[in-house]
Structures are given as structure tokens and as C-alpha cells.
């Protein structure tokens, strides 16, 4: 075997470590990573030439190589001098390949760091030897621990600026170890380094003879990855895709997130709870006798049972929890605040469900770790919340398995990822409350009244004429012998929603309760007229989702703000303009116009009577009510 062949053989057996670096530019983080790449000979001649040129032009090291410039990528950032995203770097030694998540910058820090940390097995935390453990160090440590990273390297940097003092180093290392213990970080190691001079990066430094531990590279090459623990954990494989090329083959494709699996092993499909055995583990050229965490595989089962995307194939001996209400930690990543009651998409593994935050318990001050009362979460805030999903899902606690315990929240309108969540445990409530199947159901109720139950949802500005028109519509329906009920915004606020104010959270909760009441009334077979400003699209969409598709008729009572304000039947606009009324829709709180309302009434062109007539006509045309 030639030397290259031999080299390739050994290279094929090396492992991989993903780690994250935390600290600000001032701590010399970019310089440290640049130095690692440089010393590991990962820079090519042309890259070095570009680096030399850049260092002279825009460097901060007086023309010396400025390693920080190696890591800058985007023009805008380079000009502003801030990095606003996560950058991934690669290098390898004979023992391991490394993927470094570099999350620099000050803005968006929590969001970026959480993203980078979510896939990392280890973290390098930088501190400036002159400053020691700072608030920022504690914040980073908390995030690292929260995201489940078990190994932390504290790199005490800029040792050259404190004369390589062993006492300075020991003081910082001790202080940090004490703090790390408090937040549950078990495996912490400290190394005195100088990124600028290269001390203890690749080779032990002569200037720190009092330090006997590994170098940074030595640490990275040997630190334990989480694999052994995951391999001992029970088997989990979220099903991504059902592979059905022909009638004889039905395989379930996914990535093994924990445990091992062999043909013949007993499994349970969750959340449905059906059991079977693994028949085959197929791969490209031959079947496998075993699969381990991290492998993408395709399984076939011994029995023809129902399995679809989003289900999890789990160990039958140690199955996952199944629930529809959880306590979770949520990290908010959007400019729009997280509002309890607002529906989001929740994606966990390969499963997507509709979810709402039912209760925000507290938020964490990441600098002091204090718990503060919070009804909402703003960008980069972290809080403990109760989460409710519209169907039961299988899960593991996040600290046991990141892939079956970590989820993202997606905004239903923008489709952006707005939050990340860590599931902790199922709420007892969801175990104890079961949906009762009733014999006298909606169909029976409707049939008895000889009508089709539905919701007529009137939305529009205050003073638009919603209640006036809704009243006229109800009178007409009543006169035709139909069974109706009108839920009016003002009336409901006197009773059911007496405890709610006009903040965004309260408005969302206001609508949620009304939508729930409307749903119950539809179940009772009634035609429900709802007359609510309901300014937010997402809440109207939530109300729509609560009933069946054809049962929700959105009626946009469209009156220009100027006209509604001129009418001002209750004097509310005047008060709002005088600042006596806060969060008033149209004045200092937005009204999001409906985009696809079933019925659109422009009140400036019609009298209330003719508007009501139009609505009745549409209801007749679409068969919601019979024609006269």
C-alpha cells in the first residue's frame, strides 16, 4: 500500500467535532480562530496573500497579519465592522475534522449564538486576561448550558498583556469554575493562551511553564463528543419520508437521533402507539446489520401498519412521551414579539403542528439569571412558557435528546423562523383532560334546527358600522326562523373578557376566547354573528381554523379611518387622539386589512340596510341559508 493509500485509509476513520466560539471581537476571538486555521496549515498561499493585502489596507494590527480579517465575509459587515450572522469554518488535523460555528457581533447575539450552539458538542469561551469573567462571559455560559453543550473550554486570552501571570490565570479559572457549577456546566477546562502570539494554541508555550494541561488544539482533538451518551439512549428515528417505489417495498426514511437499531428489534410508532419489528435496514448497496445515531437510514417493518411523515419510530421498550401540552423554554428571534394565544407553526423533527403559547411564566435576565414576570417575549429574550399543540406529539426532554426535544416556531404569515424551543416535560393537564365524544353532535344540533351552523365574522375599525350591520343581518335571519346569536365586542368585554385590557397580548386573548365561544355555539347548531374589531390577521386566521372550512365567513366592514373617525359614535377617537386612550386601533395600534374576506362591504357606498341585504344575498347564493 502506498503512503497516500495508507493516509487515506487512516483519514477515513477520523471523527468530527462541531464547536462554537463565544466572546466579542475585543476578546480576540476572530484572531484565535484565524490563528488555529493558520497554525493548522489550513490557509492557502493566495488566501494568505489576500490576508496580507487586507491587513495592510484595513487591518487593526499596524500592518501585521490581522487574522480577524480572515473571518469577515460580507461586504456590508466589513464596512460596518460588525458581523451579524453565524459563519462556519472548517479545518482538520490527522485526528479530527472540525466545524467551527463563529457567532460574532453584538446585535442579534442571542439569536446567532443559540443557532450556532444548537449543533455544537463543545464551546470555547474567550475571556480577556486583563478583565476576567465578565457579565458577557456569564451570559454566553448560560446559553451554552441551556442549549445542552456539555464541554466548555475557557480560553484565558491575551496572557501576553498580563506577563503570563499564573496567579491571574488561576484567579480567573477558579472564579469561572465556581460560576459554571452554579449553572450546571460539568466539564470545564481552562487554558492560558495568546491568540496574537500563538501561545498554547498548537504547541505548549515556554512562557507558561506553570501550565501542564493540553493546548487548545490538543483539547479539541480529544474532548469527548456526545455520541457515546446518545448511543446508549433509547432508539429514536423521526420519519422524514415514506419510500414506496413499488408495491413490494415500503420503507421509512429518517436520521437516527439516538440509540441503535438492528433487524428484529421491537419498535413503536409514535404518537399512534402501534408496535412492530424492524424487518430490514436498507442502504444503497447492501442491507445494514445495525445503525447508530447520526446515520440516515431507511427501515422496513414486519407489519403493515400506518406510518407517515412526522411520526417517530422509537424503541418499544422505552417509548417517548406523548402529549399536547408542555412546559418549554423559548428563545425569541423575531422583531415581532411572541404573544400568548397567537397561533404559530411548531416544527419538531419531521413533524409540523399548530401551536400556541398558552401561558408565559417568566423571562430570564440572561445577565443575572433572575426570573422576571413577562406576558410576552421580545427579540432575543428567553422565557419559560406553556405550549399547547393542536394534536398530540411524541417528544423527549431536550436535555436527553436535542432532536426530539428541540423545536422551532414559524410565523404563519411571514413563514419566518421566529423562535426556538426546548421541551422540558408534558403538563399533567393534558394527560387528564380527554376530549369527550358526544352522541348529540353538531350535525344533530344543526339538523334539529333545520339550518347550517356557521360563524359570520364581522371585522373592521371601531365605528365602521359592524354592530349596526350585524344587528340588521341577525334581524333578517331571525325573521326567517333561523337560530342565531350575536357576540358583540363591547358586550363581551363587560363579562367574559372583563379582565382584559387593550395591549397586543390582551387583544389576542380577547379574540381567542370569543373564537372558542363561537366554536361552541357552532357545535350547538347556531348561526353565530361575531362583531369584533379583530385587528390582526393571525387571530382572524386562528378563529377560522377553529371551525370547519365552509363554516367561517369573514365579512370586512370597510370604512376609511377618516370616515370612522368623523362618525366617532362613542367619542373614542377623540379620546385616543387626546392620548386618553392607549393602543387604539387605527390611531396607535395597527389594523391589518383582510386579504381574502368572503364578503367585502364598503360602507361609504351603501346604507347599513343595503349592506345587510348584500350579505343575506351572498349567504343565499353560497347555500349557507335557503332562499326565500
Amino acid at each position, binding site marked *: 500500500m502506498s503512503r*497516500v493509500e495508507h*493516509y*487515506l485509509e487512516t483519514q*477515513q*476513520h*477520523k*471523527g*468530527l467535532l462541531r464547536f462554537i466560539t463565544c466572546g466579542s471581537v475585543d476578546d480576540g476571538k476572530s484572531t484565535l480562530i484565524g490563528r488555529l486555521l493558520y497554525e493548522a496549515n489550513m490557509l*492557502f498561499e*493566495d488566501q494568505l496573500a489576500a490576508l496580507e493585502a487586507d491587513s495592510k489596507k484595513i487591518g487593526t494590527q499596524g500592518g501585521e497579519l490581522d487574522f480577524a480579517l*480572515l*473571518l469577515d*465575509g*460580507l*461586504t*456590508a459587515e*466589513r464596512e460596518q465592522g460588525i458581523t*451579524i450572522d453565524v459563519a*462556519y469554518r*472548517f479545518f482538520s488535523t490527522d485526528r479530527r*475534522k472540525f*466545524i467551527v460555528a463563529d457567532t460574532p457581533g453584538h446585535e442579534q447575539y442571542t*439569536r*446567532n449564538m443559540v*443557532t450556532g450552539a*444548537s*449543533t455544537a458538542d463543545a464551546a470555547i469561551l474567550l475571556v480577556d486576561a486583563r478583565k476576567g469573567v465578565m457579565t458577557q462571559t456569564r451570559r454566553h455560559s448560560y446559553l451554552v448550558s441551556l442549549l445542552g453543550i456539555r464541554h466548555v473550554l475557557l480560553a484565558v486570552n491575551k496572557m501576553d498583556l498580563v506577563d503570563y501571570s499564573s496567579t491571574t490565570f488561576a484567579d480567573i479559572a477558579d472564579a469561572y469554575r465556581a460560576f459554571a457549577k452554579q449553572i450546571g456546566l460539568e466539564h470545564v477546562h481552562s487554558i492560558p493562551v495568546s491568540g496574537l502570539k500563538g501561545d498554547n494554541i498548537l504547541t505548549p508555550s515556554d512562557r507558561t511553564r506553570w501550565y501542564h494541561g493540553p493546548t487548545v488544539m490538543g483539547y479539541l482533538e480529544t474532548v469527548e*463528543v456526545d*455520541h*457515546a451518551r446518545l*448511543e446508549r439512549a433509547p432508539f429514536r428515528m423521526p420519519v*422524514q*419520508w415514506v*419510500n414506496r417505489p413499488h408495491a413490494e417495498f415500503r*420503507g421509512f*426514511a*429518517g*436520521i437516527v*437521533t439516538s440509540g441503535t437499531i438492528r433487524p428484529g428489534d421491537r419498535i413503536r410508532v409514535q404518537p399512534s402507539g402501534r408496535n412492530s419489528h424492524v424487518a430490514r435496514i*436498507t*442502504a444503497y448497496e447492501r442491507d445494514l446489520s445495525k445503525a*447508530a445515531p*447520526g*446515520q*440516515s437510514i*431507511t427501515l422496513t417493518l414486519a407489519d403493515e401498519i400506518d406510518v407517515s*411523515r412526522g411520526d417517530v419510530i422509537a424503541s418499544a421498550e422505552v417509548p417517548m412521551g406523548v402529549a399536547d401540552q408542555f412546559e418549554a423554554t423559548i428563545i425569541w*428571534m423575531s422583531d415581532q414579539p411572541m404573544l400568548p394565544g397567537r397561533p404559530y*407553526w411548531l*416544527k*419538531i423533527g*419531521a413533524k409540523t403542528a399548530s401551536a400556541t403559547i398558552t401561558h408565559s411564566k417568566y423571562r430570564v435576565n440572561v445577565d443575572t439569571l433572575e426570573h422576571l414576570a413577562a406576558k410576552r417575549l421580545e427579540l432575543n429574550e428567553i422565557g419559560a412558557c406553556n405550549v399547547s399543540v393542536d394534536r398530540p406529539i411524541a417528544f423527549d426532554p431536550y436535555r436527553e435528546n436535542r*432532536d426530539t426535544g*428541540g423545536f*422551532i416556531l*414559524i410565523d404563519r404569515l411571514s*413563514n*419566518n*423562523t421566529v423562535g*426556538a424551543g426546548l421541551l422540558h416535560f408534558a403538563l399533567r393537564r393534558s394527560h387528564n383532560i380527554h376530549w369527550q365524544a358526544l352522541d348529540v353532535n353538531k350535525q344533530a344540533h344543526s339538523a334539529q334546527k333545520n339550518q347550517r351552523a356557521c360563524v359570520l365574522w364581522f371585522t373592521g375599525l371601531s365605528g365602521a358600522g359592524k354592530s349596526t350591520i350585524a344587528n340588521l343581518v341577525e334581524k333578517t335571519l331571525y325573521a326567517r326562523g333561523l337560530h342565531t346569536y350575536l357576540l358583540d365586542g363591547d358586550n363581551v368585554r363587560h363579562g367574559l373578557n372583563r379582565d382584559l385590557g387593550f395591549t397586543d397580548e390582551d387583544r389576542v386573548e380577547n379574540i381567542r376566547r370569543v373564537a372558542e365561544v363561537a366554536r361552541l355555539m357552532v357545535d350547538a347548531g347556531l348561526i353565530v354573528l361575531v362583531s369584533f374589531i379583530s385587528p390582526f390577521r393571525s387571530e382572524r386566521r386562528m378563529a377560522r381554523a377553529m371551525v370547519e372550512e365552509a363554516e367561517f365567513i369573514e365579512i370586512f366592514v370597510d370604512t376609511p379611518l377618516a370616515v370612522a373617525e368623523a362618525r366617532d359614535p362613542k367619542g373614542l377617537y377623540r379620546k385616543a387622539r387626546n392620548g386618553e386612550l392607549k393602543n387604539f386601533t387605527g390611531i396607535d395600534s395597527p389594523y391589518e386589512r383582510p386579504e381574502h374576506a368572503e364578503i367585502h362591504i364598503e360602507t361609504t357606498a351603501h346604507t347599513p340596510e343595503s349592506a345587510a341585504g348584500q350579505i343575506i344575498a351572498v349567504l343565499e347564493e353560497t347555500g349557507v341559508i335557503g332562499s326565500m
Partner: protein
Amino acid sequence: MSLTHLEYLEAESIHIMREVVAEVEKPVMLYSIGKDSSVMLHLAMKAFHPAPPPFPLLHVDTTWKFREMYEFRNRTAKALGIELIVYVNPEGLMMNINPFIHGSTLHTDIMKTQALRQALDSYGFDAAFGGARRDEEKSRAKERIFSFRSAQHHWDPKNQRPELWRVYNCRKHRGESIRIFPLSNWTELDVWQYIHREQIPVVPLYFAKARPVVERNGTLIMVDDQRMPLGKGEVPVMRTVRFRTLGCYPLTGAIESTADTVSAVIREMLLTTKSERQGRVIDFDATASMEKKKQEGYF
């Protein structure tokens, strides 16, 4: 026993491909005929086995690729039994765009950037796999695996979705599309090691052989067909060369090399001191050029 780095990368790429196929309406795999495309295609074969990959290959053809690349492309599609769509920008064809005359910037813009947009729009593909890697260039290091493009194919580097764990958010509005880079975390060396391990066929141009070349501005350009204009006194000479990266032949520099097998290529790469993109003429056009192209919709 924990996975080796190649096993990890393979599993990650397969997971990404399956996730896309499960969530989007009409995916396609961009096939550039290069080594990264070869690896990506091999991974797709594995990901959906025993079914064939549930998407076609799309080659955005500038008509200026090496002849050996065209042969390899047709042979590969046939051998694997995969649908291959070849798209050429008809306006570019009519304008007779020629990199020798119009320069690399215009050629790339019309025959690649514009052509790719046209192809995606006309077939209605809403997701396209690309073989780009983060180690290729500084600005790519920050791009996500899932890259969202507006209906006008614009990329907004300030508005990327965070990617946590292995949970990818594939939701998009009608008209928007996604570019997905399953090889994001691979390096050039990983790609070659994997080609070696899996014995994946690649275009023979990657291996050293005597080829007719001329030297221009320090770059060795291969005389691949009659369209190449020769300067006064310029005579092609046979030199033993190979290519580290493949593109349009007038824009791709060869390197002197004797590496004629995969392991020899890897050996050479371990000893080399020049990065892969050095052979690409387009990168020299302007600073941060790749980032600019990307914002305009180039891969």
C-alpha cells in the same frame, strides 16, 4: 462507535435532501458536471434508494463547457436513468455570447445567472439543490443551507432564517423559491476523500494528461475547440495538466500536474499551497464578487 467525518457529512446531506423532497412541490437538482455535482448526485441516489431520486437534473448550459464534460454528462444521466434537462438562455444564444469577446462578467451574467432564473421560472421549480460549499469562499461561510429567494430571485443576506439543530423551515410563499446546499459543510478535501471511498466517477479532466494549452496572463487555458481565437504567434503546446475546478473552458485555468488518479489528486492537494478557486477567472473580477453575484441570483 461514533461516525467518521465522511459518514457524518453523508448522513447530513441525505437528511437535507429528504427534508426538501418531503416539503416542497417541485424540486430540481442543479447539475454542473463537476466533482461536487457528482458527489451530490451520488448522495441523492443513496438518499432515495431503492426509489430513484424524485427530481430531475438541470444543467444550465453556457455552450462553452469542455467537450469531455458534455460527454460525461450524457453518459452519467443515461447510466443512472435520470431525467436530464439542459437549458440554454435563448437570448444569449441569439446574441452569440462569447466569453472571449464579451468577457467573463457578461458571459456569466447572461449564460448562467439569467439562464438559471429563466430555467427555474419556466419549469416552475420551487426548490433547487446546488453543490456549493461553505469552504469555497468567505461570503459563502455565512450562507445557510437553505437560502430563500424572492420571486425576483434576490438573496437578502440580512434576512436569513436561523437554522437550529436539524430542523429546517422549508415554508415559503407562492412564487418564492429555495436554493439548498446539501454540501455546505464539506471541504474540497472531504469531497475527494468521499469520491475515493465511494469510487464515484468524475470527469477525466480532473486527472493529469497531455493537453493542448496556451498561457495567458499566467493562466493555462486549454484549446478545447475551434472557437478559441489564437493571438499572433500564440501556438498551443502540449503540457501535462489537470483541472481543480471545471467551468467554461475559456474561463477555467489548468494546473501543471502529474496526478492521474484520485489518490494522486488527493496527495497533490495535501501538498498544494493554492486554493481551489484560484483557477476561476470570474472571482478576480471585483472584490466581494461572489457575494454580488449571489445577490443578483447567481448560485
